[in-house]
């Protein structure tokens, strides 16, 4: 594991008008590391991701990106600090074409990712480059959302259920992409319901329940203990 922490979440609390969803969540993700965030529906995973991104305002605690405090900063500040997000539900820009979706996400100063490279990675997008975002199938939208996040050349990627709606073959590709990305030193926090994917790509995992992290361990350790998995996730 890397000593250099790209994401540090400390005692974070957040929620929506009237209800506090997260309570005292702490979590770190190091450079080149992928951490899986698991938990049942409504556990607060998306809320955590969006609070890190600044899309939900933190009520308490701290979020640091690469050492820089971004707690409760607006999303564009967090993004410019080096965070990319593939949000739950994809949220591609419906009235824009595929190409335009990618163009506006392209951050000029970074040379790493280009639109061509994204197309090479996901050729299906090239075929549908002039289609509007709203005209894509679910899986195509997911690819577009990943491509869009990559074009910001982030240091940290937040993936909220990236396999949601993807065909197995594509899930596999996504898994490979994520592995490639961690190889380049990118830090990844991934929320997943597809445990195959989660286990394949990540080094560590954290499990949430009712707004708190109730378990943290390496993936390898976790997979040895079927009993624990059953009690935490209802599987096994």
């Amino acid at each position: 594991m890397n000593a250099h922490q790209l994401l540090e979440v400390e005692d974070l609390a957040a929620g929506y008008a009237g209800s506090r969803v997260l309570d005292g969540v702490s979590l770190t993700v190091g450079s080149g590391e992928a951490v899986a965030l698991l938990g049942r529906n409504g556990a607060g995973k998306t809320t955590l991701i969006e609070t890190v991104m600044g899309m939900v305002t933190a009520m308490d605690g701290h979020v640091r990106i690469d050492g820089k405090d971004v707690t409760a900063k607006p999303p564009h500040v967090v993004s410019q600090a080096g965070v990319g997000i593939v949000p739950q539900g994809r949220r591609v820009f419906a009235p824009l074409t595929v190409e335009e979706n990618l163009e506006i996400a392209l951050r000029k100063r970074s040379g790493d990712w280009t639109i061509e490279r994204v197309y090479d990675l996901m050729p299906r997008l090239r075929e549908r480059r002039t289609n509007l975002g709203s005209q894509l199938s679910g899986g195509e939208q997911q690819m577009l959302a990943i491509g869009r996040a990559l074009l910001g050349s982030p240091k940290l990627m937040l993936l909220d259920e990236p396999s949601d709606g993807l065909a197995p073959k594509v899930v596999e590709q996504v898994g490979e992409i994520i592995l490639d990305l961690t190889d380049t030193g990118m830090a990844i926090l991934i929320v997943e319901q597809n445990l195959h994917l989660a286990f394949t790509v990540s080094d560590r995992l954290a499990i949430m329940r009712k707004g708190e992290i109730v378990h943290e361990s390496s993936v390898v350790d976790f997979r040895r203990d079927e009993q624990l998995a059953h009690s935490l996730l209802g599987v096994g």
Partner: protein
Amino acid sequence: MLAWFDANTATILNGLALGAVLFLIAVGLSLVFGTMDVLNLAHGAVSLMGAYVGVAMYGAAPTTGMFFLAMAIAAAVGFAAGGVLATMVSPVRNHLRQALLTLGMALIVAELLQEVFGPEVRSVPVPEFLSSTVSLMGNPYPVYRLAMVAAGIVVAVVLYIVLERTRAGAIVRATVADRAMVEAIGIRTKVVLALVFGGGAALAAVGGLLAAPILGAQPGLDDQILLLALVIVVIGGLGSLRGALLGALVVGQVQTIGVSVVNEFASFLLFAALAAVLLFRPQGLLPARKGAHV
């Protein structure tokens, strides 16, 4: 038929001129709605501000320099007003509450304008270099109205290129669709919002200034302009540039040829046309392109 055209050339041309100036005003409304998803009911008031810039700056017929200076000032005033409105509106996401806010602002602005410029109608002279007339079928026709047609064309072309062919345009459209997500890819949507709003309002103010020699400047004009602009934008198709253009041309002709042909029903025509268009094409004549998933 040909004779009819001969007899009505001036009226048709006039419809074009009216359409052009209405386009200048309405396109800002459409732009802000189509791109920012805000129905700015203060649009008419901003337009009236532009007209009053003319009142404040022109004495008799303004010189060329004065005229362009006034345009610049109207644009600046409109831009500033739009920026302020954008800032005020940005935390308000509900359409109806936006309407409440912008109409409230419209009432305030209109009242303040009346405070400064008085309740009476003020006329605005035509700039000197456009004050001549040309002969049309043997009757005089004012050059100023021809110039308005030209202004409409120029603005339409420039806007089309900016919105549909540039990255900036794409950002603007994306911001409508999902503001938080645009933020999340690192773009300050507050700035985008302010720029677009400012741009739309600047166009409205310049439109108001250009229209002032025909419509005059007086309290209450803001409501009329707002209604006309709304009708145009909806007839043409919301949020679509081409729609605003077509809508303005249609309304221009309805207001000229229409009222002269069926004079008894002149007052019904505008809204009857609106109802008729919406009946057969609820999405307007040229709606913004969009596609919904299954």
